[in-house]
């Protein structure tokens, strides 16, 4: 591999989900792009997944493979040498959960803009009208955000938002509880009151694969406590929701997330986004962002 186009050492040394396992087929070579670097992958006769970078022709150089891990229904790789393992989602292994790959979508937006939108509740009544929110129930109530240096992740708790069809059991609206995690600069996991068991929560994750600084593939994984919906219903619901976010994401300017505190106007509801921007700044991430001037 010649020198990488992406010059951000932190981004290069992260793990990235590339494709759902069921889409890696025996002997079939598929191509993708990670941080502007063309890559290709296949499943070998042994059942192992092989991934390699190439110069655009897809050809596999002898003996040069990228690291591979299988996690959360996807295979993950890296262009560098990660000093940390892929973050944990303990719920994924709980036996009574259904783990579903909803879709991978291409979006002409930067990865951090997607993460911020994923953390945001204030847009529910306007972008996910009558599904995740509805006017006039627009208030974002106070919630807590903490940044754990030990686990190197952001956690927003005690989040509540009014949802018109809060659960299958009730016909009316009610507050729904959310918890958000940002365990990776380009990945996030949200937890949401589960319909069938108020004591437990459904998990929805986005794993973002940056193609360039301003375009991505986003992989969406759900880990649900749900024994009635079909996989197809669940997938289509998630696609509908993400399809509503897409035109917002693609109409944000600048596309890269500005880390200068004076670039945009935060309000209290944006606490988690403010902490996320500071976290990226402190890490020294430069890919997909406009760094604050020193």
């Amino acid at each position: 591999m010649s020198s990488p186009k992406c010059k951000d050492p932190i981004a290069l040394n992260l793990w990235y989900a590339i494709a759902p396992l069921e889409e890696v087929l025996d002997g079939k070579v598929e191509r993708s792009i990670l941080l502007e670097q063309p890559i290709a992958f296949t499943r070998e006769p042994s059942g192992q997944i092989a991934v390699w970078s190439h110069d655009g022709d897809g050809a596999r150089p002898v003996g040069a493979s990228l690291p591979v891990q299988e996690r959360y229904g996807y295979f993950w790789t890296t262009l560098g040498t990660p000093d940390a393992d892929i973050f944990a989602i303990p719920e994924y292994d709980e036996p009574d959960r259904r783990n579903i790959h909803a879709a991978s979508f291409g979006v002409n937006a930067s990865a951090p803009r997607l993460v911020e939108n994923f953390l945001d509740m204030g847009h529910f009544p306007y972008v996910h009208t009558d599904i995740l929110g509805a006017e006039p129930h627009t208030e974002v109530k106070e919630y807590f955000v903490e940044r754990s240096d030990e686990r190197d992740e952001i956690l927003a708790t005690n989040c509540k938002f009014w949802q018109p069809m809060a659960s299958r059991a009730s016909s009316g609206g009610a507050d729904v509880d959310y918890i958000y995690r940002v365990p990776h600069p380009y990945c996030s996991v949200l937890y949401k009151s589960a319909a069938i068991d108020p004591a437990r929560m459904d998990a929805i994750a986005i794993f973002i694969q940056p193609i360039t600084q301003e375009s991505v593939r986003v992989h969406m994984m759900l880990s649900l406590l749900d024994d009635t919906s079909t996989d197809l219903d669940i997938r289509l619901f998630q696609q509908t929701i993400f399809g509503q976010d897409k035109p917002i994401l693609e109409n944000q300017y600048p596309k890269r997330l500005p880390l200068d505190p004076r670039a945009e106007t935060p309000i209290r509801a944006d606490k988690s986004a403010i902490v996320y921007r500071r976290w990226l700044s402190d890490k020294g991430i430069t890919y997909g962002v406009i760094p604050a001037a020193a």
Partner: protein
Amino acid sequence: MATDLQNTWHPIAASTDLVKRHVYQAQLLGREYAVWRADDGYVNIWENRCLHRGVRLSIGINDGRELKCQYHGWRYANRTAGCTYIPAHPADAPARTICNNTYPVAEASGLVWCGEHATGDLPDMSGFESVTALRGLPVNAPRDMVIEALGAYAFADGCSAQTDEHGVVTVTAADGQAVRFFVQPSDSNLSVIRGVLNQALDGAERIAALRHHNFLLDVLRSQVEARAAELETPEPMTPPIAKVSADLAEIPPEQEGGRTAELRVQVVDKTVTAEGIVSLRLEAIKGQLPTFQPGAHIDVHLQNGMVRQYSLTNGPGETDHYTIGVKREPDSRGGSVAIHDSLAVGDVLAVSAPHNNFPLRRDALHTVFVAGGIGVTPLLAMARALNSQGLSFEFHYFVQSHAHAAFRREMGEFGDALTLHKGLSPEDTGAKLRDILASPGHARHLYICGPGPMLEATRGIAADLGWSDEAVHFEYFKNTKEVDDTNSFQIELARSALSLNVPAGKTILEVLRENGINMESSCEQGACGTCRVGVIEGEVIHQDVYLNDAEKSAGKSIMTCVSRAASDRLILDI
């Protein structure tokens, strides 16, 4: 050249492009604009980026008075571009300084003109006093290349072209017909040809002329684009992204400023709107009036030196003037009498920018307004905002008689939501209020403004009937309580680490100001809420009428103009 282009006017649309309730998307020198015409005809040219999260405003909604961002529903006012409502925090008044970036605008010769830093005159249009604007034609080519090609444009016999030093091309035919072209530099490789004919055409003649030029320009475009495609495409322009003001970058915004009167307004209309009540229309002498939100008031500095607070009655989008209502109160200290008797159309007044200590939530399922007499003014502005958004409300207006009901024309738009209660005795008023307030409920909010006794009665009835403190919002005109200022105590300022003594006879506000702390205030009698400060430690003797009972017993804030410490010291969050 680029700098010159930024300082001059360019057409960015035809007037006919800006239909009502539409947001037009434009670009000039690489910067995108959201352009929208309000129902009052005013053309707004704003940067195409909501300052909250950068979403293009050209995908937002023009409701005729305000532009609503599609992402979080933030609303921005006609003319000022100031934010009037943030739905995520319905109980708060947005900082007045949250404002989108606006650019110079002019409308002339059938075109809408803009320039990043345009000052000075629009281009000379002599010979083009009456015009027909052609269909704007976008061309994927640099501006200079398009200007050069227009030099060979011929639409009739004997055409000759002249290009001036600004790149304006005028093509004149033998019979005197002429067309003048301005080439809008959208981006390094995108231009728009905007032409005007030197005659106003209509009907079939107009359409024929528009088609004729459209066809010829389309041919010209093909040639220019073919030529441009052979060259290397220039990099897109990257206009600098302006930063928001420092106070908006952190939350919450800091409070600054004392009792100021930074605006000069002229009385342009003075009308008797009801018995004993005049309405005053105030317009800025120079520039634009600041953004207001429903519920806001201004301090009016009268010619006799008095300062009085009056609520704005304006509906959303009415941003070219403020309208206030003033009741003649012969028994009071003379402010209203001065306005009624001495103030005349044409007079100039000093007023403050709007303060909003009576914010309107718009997340209620239903809102009940109870107005008594002149207390109608802030509630009028609120109900007009809800009405404009199609939100559910009812408006009860208690007056002595029909002749005492002010602003009837403005309230006409409320239809059945308005009920006028005329000439009720205090007992009958109480009974009526019990009817009105019979069903408190989830997400129902009550706003009250009127004379002290009525306000007290309404609050009492609401509390009796089960309305929670959080759902009841009120504003007193004045504080009629006797203020006791006989004790002395210490205040400690947590953020500035100052310790000060407040002696008997002085207010906390006065002591703070004497020590160089710039505090904002307005009524200075415990009614308006402007000088509110957070309390970290210590007990408070509340002597204001602004805080509700729950807020008073919580003891987390104090009105520094009247209230005092019950303990030896207070630690304040300033």
